[in-house]
């Protein structure tokens, strides 16, 4: 209304209420900071009461606080080594399991060698044995009981970059099954996924989030190696249904799909192939 307050008045509304404090929304925190002390202390002091004689309760509360501190500290420090030892024990068990697995694998290889040796000695030297041995030598690379080397092609497949949002952007067990079948169809003689040799008894399955080959889980990316004629294999694979399937996955779902040829691939034998049945032939 007066000239001095002219800056604060709005035309037509001379009576402006004082502005809301800028920190009104922080009132709760302000109140906590402004009043950190129990107001009762001031109240009792203002009343000017004589010092109460309630020493017992005071000591009790002090002792109680002390006990609480001690117990909480003890519990925290005591439970830390317990957690640590639990973890260490789990690691020990995993390592022991891995060691046992390695030993069993070595034992399995030893037994396979022994089976080979026994078979050779049982076959003898006659014409029939020579023919049988030739057949064994011809079939075992294809079946997967021996390690093989040779030229071939390598296909590396991987989940799409945005796989975390959509499960369909991930490589599934069925994709790898189709891929492996396509390679057989294209004339591959031996196939391995991430170093696990495939045979007619190999299962490619998913277990939880991982794909397993012969019940050993794989980690992405998946490297599929196939031994065969490196000149014709890529083209023949591209012509199969599996080639079309993967071409579409790569084009529509941005999954990783890279093919290349290799001069020399080494594929280990499938340790899962064992002698399951033996029969003594009539002499």
């Amino acid at each position: 209304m007066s000239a001095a307050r002219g800056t604060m008045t709005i035309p037509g509304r001379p009576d402006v209420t004082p502005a809301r404090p800028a920190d009104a929304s922080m009132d709760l925190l302000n109140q906590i900071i402004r009043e950190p002390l129990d107001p009762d202390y001031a109240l009792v002091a203002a009343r000017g009461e004589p010092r109460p004689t309630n020493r017992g309760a005071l000591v009790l509360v002090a002792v109680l606080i002390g006990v609480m501190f001690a117990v909480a500290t003890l519990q925290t420090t005591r439970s830390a080594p317990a957690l640590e030892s639990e973890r260490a024990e789990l690691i020990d068990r995993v390592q022991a399991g891995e060691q046992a697995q390695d030993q069993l694998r070595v034992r399995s290889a030893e037994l396979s060698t022994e089976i080979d040796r026994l078979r050779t000695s049982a076959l003898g030297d006659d014409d029939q044995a020579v023919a049988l041995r030739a057949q064994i030598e011809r079939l075992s690379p294809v079946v997967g009981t021996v390690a093989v080397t040779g030229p071939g092609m390598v296909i590396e497949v991987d989940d799409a970059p945005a796989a975390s949002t959509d499960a369909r952007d991930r490589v599934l067990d069925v994709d790898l099954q189709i891929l492996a079948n396509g390679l057989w169809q294209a004339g591959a003689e031996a196939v391995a996924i991430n170093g696990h040799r495939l045979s007619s008894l190999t299962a490619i399955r998913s277990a939880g989030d991982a794909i397993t080959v012969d019940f050993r889980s794989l980690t992405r990316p998946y490297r599929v190696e196939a031994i065969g004629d490196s000149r014709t294999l890529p083209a023949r694979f591209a012509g199969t249904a599996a080639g079309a399937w993967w071409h579409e996955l790569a084009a529509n779902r941005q999954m990783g799909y890279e093919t290349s040829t290799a001069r020399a691939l080494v594929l280990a034998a499938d340790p899962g192939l064992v002698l399951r049945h033996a029969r003594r032939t009539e002499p």
Partner: protein
Amino acid sequence: MIPLIGLLAGIALGLILEPTVPQALQPYLPIAIVAAMDALFGALRAYLEGTFSDRVFVVSFVSNVLIAAAIVYVGDQIGVGSQLSTAVVVVLGIRIFTNVAAIRRALIRA
């Protein structure tokens, strides 16, 4: 002086006897301790300001601990236990900070 001796005696007692806290009460122990610290520093500040009253201290300690534990308990029942205990720790933490700052000013006038 007496509360300080009581506090030290309590710590010694806890370390020697090693009482085990019932499993059901264990989640509330840390919160109860923060509430106890709040009461403790509030009492120290009141003492330095000459307004200390042991009855107020005992009552504020007991009610602080019970309310803090009750808030966390209710939070646990309705599924926001950890958030509510964070809230309790934040509020009591601010109070402890402010009180300790006042104690520092009262003690060394800085």
